[in-house]
């Protein structure tokens, strides 16, 4: 299995990846709490972006409603914890299951009725907005006034209940991101991955090659939704508060896709690079603005917008492909 995953990966690419991972693992040793917080933010968006990328980047179906799965993951585990004291790792499978079910329903409706392209995107918005307003009215999860997890000053890290200090959260999200990366790598190399790309490139042609496009699009949305849910679990236990207004909001969905779009849709490294650049740069900008005494709430978002505009206009495939060429990381011949 491992041998298969490594098949055809250039050796220096592997070395580079190992080096990056080593730096990230060692980061808490020399990073202060502020830097750690930013790294957590970066890894979080890299993870969520990676999950979104499966649906859009691999299978070509534009989802603008991924906040739905984040929100479901967050609310399910948080509610179980608040009401019954059930830990997040126990709640997570259920959260994933519910996300998967929602993804399956949306996918079934959309793909069975042939809703594609921008119409599919609008459908996903409709579903996530629908859920957002719905959650406003579920008192069990606090409705529009929010759901709060008990906060205390934790001195000990309790990994089982996900209660503790930033360092613990850092390693959790790092592990999630690494696992997501490996899963995506494996998917891309599998039969499913090839079929997704064929569907993304030209659906009728894919069908003529014997691909049941409905089935493979369903697989894509189900995996993508299921992988997004843990991001919500992390969100809930890291921030300790949930508001439908924020968790399900359409801007959340847009933020999820910014990383991959800027990094490179459909590439493995795109979501990661995009998250590092976007979050890293915008935090640096905010720091700079605070230093010169210009604290404005919208500055970060304007920066997001400008980044997105520039990348979409100048590098329609994102910034990863040119970097990959520079580092000579294209796939090699399996025989050599």
């Amino acid at each position, binding site marked *: 299995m491992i041998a298969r995953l490594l098949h055809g990966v250039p050796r220096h690419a592997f070395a580079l990846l190992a080096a990056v991972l080593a730096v990230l693992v060692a980061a808490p040793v020399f990073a202060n709490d502020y830097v750690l917080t930013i790294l957590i933010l970066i890894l979080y968006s890299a993870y969520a972006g990676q999950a979104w990328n499966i649906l*859009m980047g691999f299978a070509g179906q*534009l989802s603008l409603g991924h906040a739905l799965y984040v929100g479901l993951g967050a609310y399910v585990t948080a509610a179980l914890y608040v009401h019954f004291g059930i830990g997040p790792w126990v709640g997570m499978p259920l959260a994933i299951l519910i996300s998967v079910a929602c993804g399956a329903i949306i996918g079934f*409706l*959309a793909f069975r*009725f*042939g*809703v594609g*392209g*921008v*119409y599919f*995107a*609008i*459908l996903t*918005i*409709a*579903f996530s*907005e*629908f859920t957002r*307003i*719905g959650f*406003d*009215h579920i008192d069990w999860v606090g409705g*529009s006034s929010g759901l709060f997890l008990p906060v205390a000053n934790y001195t000990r890290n309790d990994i089982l209940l996900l209660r503790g200090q930033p360092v613990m959260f850092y390693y959790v999200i790092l592990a999630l991101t690494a696992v997501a990366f490996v899963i995506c790598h494996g998917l891309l190399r599998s039969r499913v991955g090839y079929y997704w790309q064929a569907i993304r490139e030209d659906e009728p042609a894919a069908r003529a090659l014997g691909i049941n496009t409905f089935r493979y699009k369903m697989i894509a949305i189900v995996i993508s939704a299921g992988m997004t849910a843990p991001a919500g679990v992390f969100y809930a236990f890291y921030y300790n508060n949930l508001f439908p207004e924020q968790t399900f909001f*359409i*801007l959340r969905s*847009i933020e999820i896709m910014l990383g991959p*779009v800027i990094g490179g849709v459909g590439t493995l490294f795109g979501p990661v690079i995009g998250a590092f650049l976007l979050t890293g740069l915008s935090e640096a900008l905010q720091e700079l603005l605070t230093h010169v005494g210009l604290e*404005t*709430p*919208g*500055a970060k*978002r*304007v920066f*997001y*917008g*400008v980044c*997105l*505009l520039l990348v*979409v*206009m100048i590098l*329609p495939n994102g910034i990863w492909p040119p970097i990959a060429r520079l580092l000579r990381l294209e796939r090699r011949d399996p025989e050599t």
Partner: protein
Amino acid sequence: MMTVAMYLAVVLFARFHLDPLLMMLPIAGLLFIIGYVMQLVVINPFIARPEHSQFMLMVAVAIIIVNSLLIIFGPDAQAVQASYSFDSFALGPLIVDATKLYAGLAAILVASALFAFFRFAPLGKAIRACADNYTGALVIGLDVKKLYALSFGLGAACVGAAGAIIVLIVDVTPPLGPAYTLLAFVIVITGGLGSMPGALLGGVLIGLTEAMAGLFFTPSAKSMFAFAILVLVLLFRPQGIMGRKLS
């Protein structure tokens, strides 16, 4: 774009005490220019790109505009107090706010002007031809690029007029823009893309649904029903209620 217009109206009113309804035309004119230029500079190179790419572009532009407004005007709501703000008329058993009545009349005026333009003016017909068949329009010698920019400017102008009208009724905050954009989307897709009667019907349908839902359930859940209608329309009649069948 709508919020830009709303803020324009608010600023003009606050500075010079100009009535938003009177300012409707100048604001629309200004937005026409902004829209025209923006289309030519930013959007035109994207005509041939895939849909999601164009969509991202619009998202980027929207993010920039909304948050620039946030920086300039701050997150607090701003409102206009016209001299007739507290007047009302009695229409039979109904009592109507003067502001709402004026706003409604102005909206009807703009909509009919637009309808007439697309139905009867040669330019309006040319724009419809472009939308119908890009290549065909090129072949018969229409300057498609200019027409695209023109229609974008026109769209911006209408939105500008709408913004000027609605400040009479609603307080302005930056996040209002995306909310209205979403609502417009829902209405147009429900009614049928490219169909003016469809947009009207969609507007009435969505408006009625929200009002009824607000009455029978709770007002804050009313948009849920609008989205439910959108989902049903997308699934069973993706071209919209009044739209022509897609090939």
